[in-house]
């Protein structure tokens, strides 16, 4: 039987279509109501409440915890002071990305990390091999995680606690909600103002109830994975097994990406001053020095006139709702040679908010300048058709409230 999350007693009855997705062996709702887009808009308009408990959760502690994380993680954990969180990645020796995740410095010398896939053995093997005195525990089932995302998320939480006042982007708060201890980080996967709550498993139902009750005046809306996946594309946040693959389980380097190729080069802006010997460093430095990145990850905005025109030529109304796609789509150079391969999009959708069709794409370096025009191959009534698209900077959507200090 699939497992259920600690919020299931509440999410179960709320799942109106009664369709479930299997996320890492757990039942999770792809959507709670028939109108996906209404769930999506809760994130931009009020607040969406999302159960992300299936994420794998690891605790790092012990004398060498900091030294260990300095070695394993590509970003310097020392910059993540107690009470802060850090978006980070871990790479292999060849400088390819294994995974990404958010790590929290929960209390002095104790760190919690979320990961999309199991990594306990991976982390422990490194610790054993390099003889770090670090304790690495899998705390996946000890906590449920809720993401409360959207412009009203703070106000809803403030109905229950005052400890979030002044908690900035990627900062933490230890607080109680309705008497239940939780750790809250100002983080999320939607690119909006939002918080993630680590709730001890026995408190999950009570905390869900407290939030739903506190949020009732703010249109708090249970939100499924589909709405999240729409929001994350607008936010330019990458998804494992859609936009990139773990270097651990790829077959060839053609399936792997470096941090620079995924748009995470900013993590290494101060590499020259960084004295660590972290895994992948030499390869990453060589890639920077040799400018050997094979591609970059960029945004694409599909040309509305061309999109409309190509569909009109085929005799149909240009689809907007329902074009969400997490499959690979080919991109061609605009040149005298027809169908000259350029790169590919990893996901594409119509953003109702941005009134545009947008995509995330991997393009060779010469095509990455914002404004560069390329052709995106779509299928219109069984025919492959190229539609003009322009390279755009990521994120597509980045409201000031996400990081504001209000």
């Amino acid at each position, binding site marked *: 039987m*699939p*497992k259920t999350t600690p919020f299931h007693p509440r999410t179960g009855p709320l799942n109106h279509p009664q369709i479930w997705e*299997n996320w*890492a*062996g757990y039942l999770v709702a792809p959507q709670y109501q028939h109108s996906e887009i209404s769930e999506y808009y809760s994130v931009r308009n009020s607040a969406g409440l999302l159960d992300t408990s299936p994420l794998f959760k690891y605790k790092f502690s012990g004398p060498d915890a900091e030294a260990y994380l300095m070695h394993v993680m590509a970003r310097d954990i020392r910059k993540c002071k107690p009470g802060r969180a850090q978006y980070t990645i871990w790479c292999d020796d060849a400088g390819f990305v294994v995974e990404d995740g958010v790590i929290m410095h929960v209390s002095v010398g104790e760190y919690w990390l979320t990961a999309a896939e*199991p*990594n*306990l*053995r*991976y982390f*422990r093997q490194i610790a054993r091999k390099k003889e770090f005195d670090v304790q690495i525990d*899998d705390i996946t089932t000890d906590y449920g995680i809720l993401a409360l995302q959207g412009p009203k998320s703070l106000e809803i939480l403030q109905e229950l606690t005052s400890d979030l006042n002044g908690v900035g982007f990627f900062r933490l708060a230890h607080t109680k909600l309705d008497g239940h201890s939780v750790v809250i980080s100002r983080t999320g996967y939607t690119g909006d103002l939002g918080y993630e709550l680590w709730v001890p498993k026995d408190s999950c139902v009570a905390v869900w109830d407290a939030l739903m009750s506190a949020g009732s005046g703010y249109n708090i809306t249970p939100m499924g994975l589909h709405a999240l996946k729409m929001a994350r594309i607008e936010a330019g946040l990458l998804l494992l097994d859609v936009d990139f693959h773990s270097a*651990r*389980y790829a*077959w060839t380097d053609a399936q792997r990406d470096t941090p620079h190729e995924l748009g995470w080069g900013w993590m290494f802006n101060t590499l020259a001053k960084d004295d660590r010997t972290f895994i992948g460093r030499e390869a990453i430095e060589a890639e920077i020095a040799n400018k050997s990145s094979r591609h970059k990850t960029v945004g694409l905005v599909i040309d509305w006139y061309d999109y409309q025109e190509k569909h009109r030529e085929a005799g149909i109304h240009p689809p907007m709702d329902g074009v969400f796609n997490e499959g690979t789509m080919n991109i061609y150079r605009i040149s005298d040679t027809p169908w000259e391969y350029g790169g590919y999009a990893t996901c594409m959708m119509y953003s109702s908010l941005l009134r545009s069709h947008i995509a995330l794409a991997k393009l060779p370096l010469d095509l990455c300048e914002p404004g560069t025009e390329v052709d995106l191959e779509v299928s219109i009534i069984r025919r492959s058709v190229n539609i003009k698209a322009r390279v755009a900077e990521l994120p597509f959507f980045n409201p000031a409230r996400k990081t504001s200090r209000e």
Partner: protein
Amino acid sequence: MTKYDAIVIGGGHNGLVNAGYLAKAGLNTLILERRPYVGGAAVTEELLPGYKFTTFSYALSLIRPDICQELNLPEHGMMTLPMPHHFHPAEDGQYLKLGADSYENYHEISKLSLEDAEAMHDFGHIMDRVCHALKPLVDMIPPNPQSQEPEELERMAEFHAIMEGMPPDVQDMVQKLWTSSIAEVLDEYFENDLVKGMLASSAIIGSMCGPRSKESGMVWLFHKMGEYDGIFGEWGFHKGGNGGFTQALARAFEAFGGTILCDAGVDEVLRKDGAAVGVKLSNGEEIYADIVVSALDPRNTFLRLVDPAELPDDLVKTIQDFKFQGSAAKVNFVLSDVPKHPNHEYSSEIFRGFLNVGPTFDYLEEAFADAQEGRFSRRPFIDGCIQSTIDPDMTPPGKHIMSNFVMWAPYHLKDSDWDTERDNLGDAVQETLNSFFPGFNDLVEHREVVTPLDIERIVGIAEGNIFHGELFADQLFFSRPAPGWNQYRTPIKGYYQCGSGTHPGGCVIGAPGKLASMQILRDRAKAAV
């Protein structure tokens, strides 16, 4: 005088495949089968009315996908049913049930070890890459390193390109499996004994080696090269049992114009001037063909069907020393119901794949120790399955038939003989099953015990070795069945070999039959020029 273009001796699956390709190429081909029906060890026998026994071979994995396509087998009734999961009970009532979903498996294994749950993915990934890298070797006629012919040098170069083209970690793993025990390999990845026990079983199937014997890595790898719909190491049931598969092969062969003659044992391959000219049947009848193919094991092929005195001494010596030492038995039951596991609610689910009785290395080694002492394992390894839980054609509704593959049952018993021990082995298997599934004894309505001696007597394979000779590293590829004779030819012109004793080896795989047909047809084309 009857004359064919080609005669294939033995209607086992490799004989059928070989003959199928020859017939497809336009050769007037005859299959001679000693028994009343073809199939060899892959037969389904209705030993009791309404009950279909997979007397010997009972599942499919290694069968080459190209053979199924090229011989149009689906058109002739080939249908392989998937196994949704496999069940591995421990002696204390715990169990592992692993199946098609990797996260389900993750959570199942994490009941025992979180690190092992993750290791399964790591190990699965490296093994997928190993199998992928080695697959071309399974599907090629191996080079003959003793030959300087340009064609052979080319093959040798191809072999080296495959071996040296592998990524370093894949190369290391291949090297390790080639030379070490499966225990050494699994110990590097896993910590839990039950997990390791479940993974180890493929390393001992049909082989006189335990999980800690150095030969077991190679035996394990050989089995992992099989696939079900592209998933390495997975198995399926042929609809109606493995006899259903060989029946499909027979129909395909006949559709290509081939002829099958049953109850036609062959006593001798007829030779004239160093070349095969036909065969002499047990009844004295002679049938002629310029191409004669033996689908039998190497001992029968080289030492019985022809006069070894006419063969090179070193070849004869190698075949005499070829390790057969059959060590597997079958104990098949008719059951009034599906056995119940004390801690698993849905019992019929358990048996839709393999039931793997052999919880740990220690259990397996203890069973193997008996065999090394020249007796059958008193508490044996059992690979059980109840095909009737998914295939209603196997039994009358509500009844079940259970196939149990049993290790170890050494062909050479030290202080007894198999006619004496047959029922004692049956009892040991039944008692073992009863200990894992209390109440099992009460379900038994009928029992068939098949010892290695029975396999030799009924199917004809030397010493009852299900692979026509051990799958040990020194009996594979360049040396299967003998150095210099690893390319399906024999020293006698026109006389070929295509049984499991040739490359790549045993299991219902078909590759020996197909590769031999390629060699035969090439030789024939060259001779015609």
